[in-house]
């Protein structure tokens, strides 16, 4: 019977975890219990912790590179279509050691952060408004998802109409691509705030802004953070499209560079840019994870 096994299993684990630490003073107890003492050990052995988070990544990387190299060696496709890692990595290195590249990164990241911040601001206000006013929800609730599904490129005509060709046109494309996602995350978070909390807020006399500030926003934060993450993805993709709208003298944005790499049918360069975009995406995700972990710790969802 599954139930039986499971319980006895865990109890056995408890029994096994017993050690010699009996009878120590409270803050001396350390034992072998992983969950219990994780934070303490962490301080002691930061290196170990980093290693624990790094080895799976390195392994995954090694596997991908292995498959890639194998595909190359097996001559699955001609090498000008699928260049081997040994060719691409030097190319990537050459790329990222140019000042030009970093100027492009700076330009693109500036746009991404500006656009995303704007999208978050607008999306938050929109989400809060839609979830608060029933007629607004009926009017534009579904439109939000509709807007999300619009390919960025279809906003180009409108962007040009409204903003000519300029940074603002890019920002417009980014914001209209990402804000609905942020709004949707917030709306779904608000919709799932447990009723008990809402009632607590009501007896406390919360209303209007105070209610949002002290109850709704913190309570819907998990879903909101996940909405932000999706919003980031949307804003980045919209930006990659939007950057083709405007060229700024001096620095060539990542979006343009990616497009060029493809236009030139330069497989090595395309793969290099894919890696660059993935690394940026991974780094940003780590930021979100920081926020998320802090949140889960506060909420008592981690550890023992």
């Amino acid at each position, binding site marked *: *019977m*599954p*139930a*039986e096994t499971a*319980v*006895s*299993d*865990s*109890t*056995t*684990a*408890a*029994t096994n*975890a*017993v*050690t010699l*630490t*009996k*009878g*120590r003073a*409270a*803050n001396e*107890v*350390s*034992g072998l*219990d992983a*969950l*219990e*003492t994780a*934070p*303490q050990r962490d301080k002691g052995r930061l290196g170990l912790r980093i290693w624990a988070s790094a080895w799976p990544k390195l392994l995954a990387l090694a596997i991908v590179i292995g498959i890639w190299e194998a595909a190359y060696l097996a001559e699955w496709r001609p090498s000008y279509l699928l260049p081997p890692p040994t060719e691409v990595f030097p190319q990537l290195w050459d790329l990222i050691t140019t000042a030009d590249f970093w100027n492009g990164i700076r330009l693109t990241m500036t746009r991404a952060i500006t656009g995303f911040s704007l999208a978050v601001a607008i999306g938050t206000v929109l989400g809060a408004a839609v979830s608060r006013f029933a007629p607004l929800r009926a009017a534009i609730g579904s439109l939000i998802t509709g807007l999300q599904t619009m390919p960025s490129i279809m906003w180009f005509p409108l962007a040009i109409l409204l903003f000519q060709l300029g940074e603002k046109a890019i920002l417009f494309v980014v914001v209209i691509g990402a804000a609905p996602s942020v709004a949707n995350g917030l709306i779904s978070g608000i919709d799932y705030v447990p*009723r008990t909390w809402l009632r607590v807020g009501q007896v406390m006399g919360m209303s209007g802004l105070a209610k949002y500030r002290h109850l709704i926003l913190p309570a819907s934060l998990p879903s909101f953070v996940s909405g932000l993450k999706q919003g980031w993805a949307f804003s980045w993709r919209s930006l990659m499209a939007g950057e083709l709208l405007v060229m700024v003298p001096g620095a060539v944005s990542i979006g343009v560079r990616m497009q060029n790499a493809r236009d030139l049918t330069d497989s090595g360069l395309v793969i290099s840019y894919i890696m660059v975009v993935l690394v940026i995406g991974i780094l940003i995700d780590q930021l979100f994870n920081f926020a998320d972990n802090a949140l889960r710790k506060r909420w008592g969802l981690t550890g*023992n």
Partner: protein
Amino acid sequence: MSILETTGVRTDAVVRIENVSKTYGSGSNALLALDRVSLDVEKGEFVCLLGASGCGKSTLLSLVAGLDQISSGTLEIGGRKVALMFQEAALFPWLSVTGNVELPLRLQGLGKAERRKRAEELLEVVRLNGFADKRPHELSGGMRQRVALARALAQNADVLLMDEPFGALDAMTRDILHDELERIWREQNLTVLFVTHNVREAVRLGDRVILLSSRPGRVIEDFPIQHARPRRIDSPEVSGQAAEITDRLRAEVARHAS
């Protein structure tokens, strides 16, 4: 005549807790919740735990259930099936009342008809037959607690851990459930570890009443209850022993407070 007396053998411990300590957190934030608790529970025994708020009763139950890991000591339950009725009802909001009760039955692989029948029986036991299709949020606090009881009983375990199961019930409903619980315990030869704040309830139900000290929890007294069953909660014997235990408890709290 208690089950304890009929079984007789005191070495047949189902739950063996020896010198168990439990610390939450670590470093300067560490909190010693249980301090070298030792306690053996025999097969078929009904043991009640009493203690001040925050003394570690729930912690002890969750250790026995294998939900948390002990910091030091030995804990054995010999591979028996354990059911735990939590202090909060913790029903699943996406399931109806029957759905919640049927879930453990489903996990045991029972067929649909059988499940339905058993769930009906259990809801009858907790006097909630009319509410089978309601959702948890449509129940009152006491009703939720009773559904949680039915769900725990549905697990068909050998050892039943109960954390203040009747805290939100009125005296009458409580009396009824005392009788039902006693009947089931006897019929299925369950081993019960029962946390309560109601000393009379402890004396009404238990073969033994264990007193825990305030933070950190430690066993300070073990009262065997010898009165013949069935007992009545308002009988003079129960009241008398309850008064005795209350005095002892009060003394402990006073000692601690000073």
